[in-house]
């Protein structure tokens, strides 16, 4: 069974396991794997989950002060905390900004990359491979490598504090172009030959044939781009002000605003859970296309 089937099928098989037979049988199957292995695995996974579980619990409490493990019982303040963080302290604004930034980057990157890949894969023109390498080489240029000039360029364009500043510089994507190219190269050439014989133009071929055939990959790439964009921190921090600030940076401001003593921590954890939610939900919902796409990226 592949990684993919294992993960995608997890809920069904968990249900099946719980339905299947008496408790004794279930225990026997656990024993077959080795109880020690299960114990070790469970504790490692718990170690990974523990910090976020604590954050979730604290986000439901009135005060953020937890003096011992006994205090880690969910409180009844969940609604108040989430309401206060989102509405009164206006954390919803940061969430919306992040959502706009990530969505624009997803759509823009996909559109721009699809066009480029169409040229790279389906056109016979000189210097094509050179252009492909030229795009791939941008992998060598993460934000820190061009930090000061990029900052000066974007402020020079008058783009600081606009949504352009936190989206346009991200639109060119070496990885997206690479993954889509690999995928298109796996589609039989006869398809495009027939399309051409039928008089179908390149854009129509892209829209009517390639995109419908690539839904899985496109969803997977979208999730990767979304998570990447949502998790950007340094660049939004320096280039946009409070109006357009993203959720991750907003967290720090939430802590500052909520600084009225003990409440601060409950609200900061509330904000943390909120900020984690969108990428996490996408990961869980679209785990199948996501993992498929990763398996292409590695090649």
């Amino acid at each position: 069974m592949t990684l993919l089937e294992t993960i995608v099928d997890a809920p069904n098989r968990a249900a099946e396991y719980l339905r299947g037979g008496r408790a004794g049988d279930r225990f026997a199957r656990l024993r077959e794997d080795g109880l020690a292995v299960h114990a070790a695995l469970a504790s490692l996974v718990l170690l990974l989950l523990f910090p976020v579980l604590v954050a979730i619990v604290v986000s439901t409490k009135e005060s953020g002060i937890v003096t011992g493990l006994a205090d880690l019982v969910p409180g009844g303040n969940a609604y108040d905390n989430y309401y206060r963080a989102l509405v009164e302290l206006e954390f919803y604004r940061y969430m919306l900004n992040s959502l706009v930034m990530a969505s624009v980057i997803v759509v823009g990157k996909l559109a721009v990359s699809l066009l480029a890949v169409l040229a790279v894969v389906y056109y016979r023109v000189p210097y094509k491979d050179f252009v492909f390498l030229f795009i791939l080489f941008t992998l060598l240029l993460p934000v820190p490598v061009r930090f000061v000039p990029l900052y000066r360029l974007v402020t020079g364009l008058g783009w600081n504090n606009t949504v352009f500043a936190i989206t346009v510089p991200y639109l060119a994507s070496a990885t997206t172009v690479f993954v889509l190219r690999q995928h298109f190269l796996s589609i039989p050439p006869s398809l495009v030959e027939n399309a051409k014989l039928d008089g179908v133009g390149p854009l129509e071929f892209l829209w009517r044939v390639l995109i419908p055939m690539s839904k899985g990959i496109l969803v997977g790439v979208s999730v990767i781009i979304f998570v990447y964009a949502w998790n950007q921190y340094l660049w939004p921090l320096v280039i946009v002000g409070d109006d357009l600030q993203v959720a991750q940076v907003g967290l720090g401001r939430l802590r500052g605003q909520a600084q009225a003593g003990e409440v601060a921590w409950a609200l900061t954890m509330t904000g943390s859970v909120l900020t984690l939610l969108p990428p996490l939900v996408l990961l869980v919902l679209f785990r199948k296309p996501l993992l498929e796409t990763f398996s292409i990226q590695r090649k």
Partner: protein
Amino acid sequence: MATREVFESRWQAAALLLPTVLVSVVFLYVPAVRAFELSLFEVGFGTGEVDFVGLENYRTLLTSPEYHLSVLLTVLFAVAVVVGVMSFSLLVSFLVHEVEVGKGLYLVSAIWPYALPPAVAGFVFFFLLHPSLGVLTRAIEPPYPTLGLLERPFEALGVDVDVTGPLEAVGPDVDWFSSGPQAFALVTVVAIWKQVGYNVIFMTASMNNIPGSLTETARLDGVGRLGRLFRIYVPIMSPTLAFLAIMNTIYAFFGTFAFIDVMTDGGPAGATNILIFDLYRDALQNFEFGTASAKSVVLFVVVGVLMYVQFRVTEEYAYYGG
């Protein structure tokens, strides 16, 4: 011969490539080249006037003890992150590979940190290990709950001894606000935590490609679990492991800014002032644009070398059919 390259219009191809190329040139290549250029100048604060100073900025870096410390810290940090995240993820992936029951659930619960925003990771750990408020701080620091287990034997003997007293003296004092090594360790742990998901994804995929017959043969030959992992699986997985080592190094150098910004602000006394944070401070707090650009160029050399190594390693494995 069948070919995909059925369209020939150069204008169309150029138009299709234009958006990507334009953004790449304007926002990636030109700023990168400008960074190199700026690194040769001293940029006046506020005025933006530039003075050509040649390699002076690089000389400053070569002779700056703070920068040397930052380089050293970053290398240590990268090594700790790469070793830590890869050992932990290898263990998790291997154990998941070994079980049948609950495989999928274990995997989802190991992969999710891939989606974890770094600032969230930072804030959660800030809270968990806050020197005076943290939940874990209380568990780590003495006094530990003894439940009377230590005192009772003495009481039974009628001896009056304070056994918990000495215990309070041993054990760590969580204080990463002022202890450099503790702050460094904390940031490392958080950086590892966030990167586990990504590693488990690739390691599990790679382990699943190992033929079952090989595992069977090893079992019949009486090779134990750990023997199987280190003598059979790890060598077969080495291309993936090499790829991950590079990706994790790049992550440690470039993807960890938020942890520092949220938790330690580079301190205490520069103990967590890794290169990317140092660069940010130079550029936007000290407005030393020239020196900051020289630091950018240093980072560019780092990515360049790493990518080159990755390219060579991948090529080698592909060539020998690994």
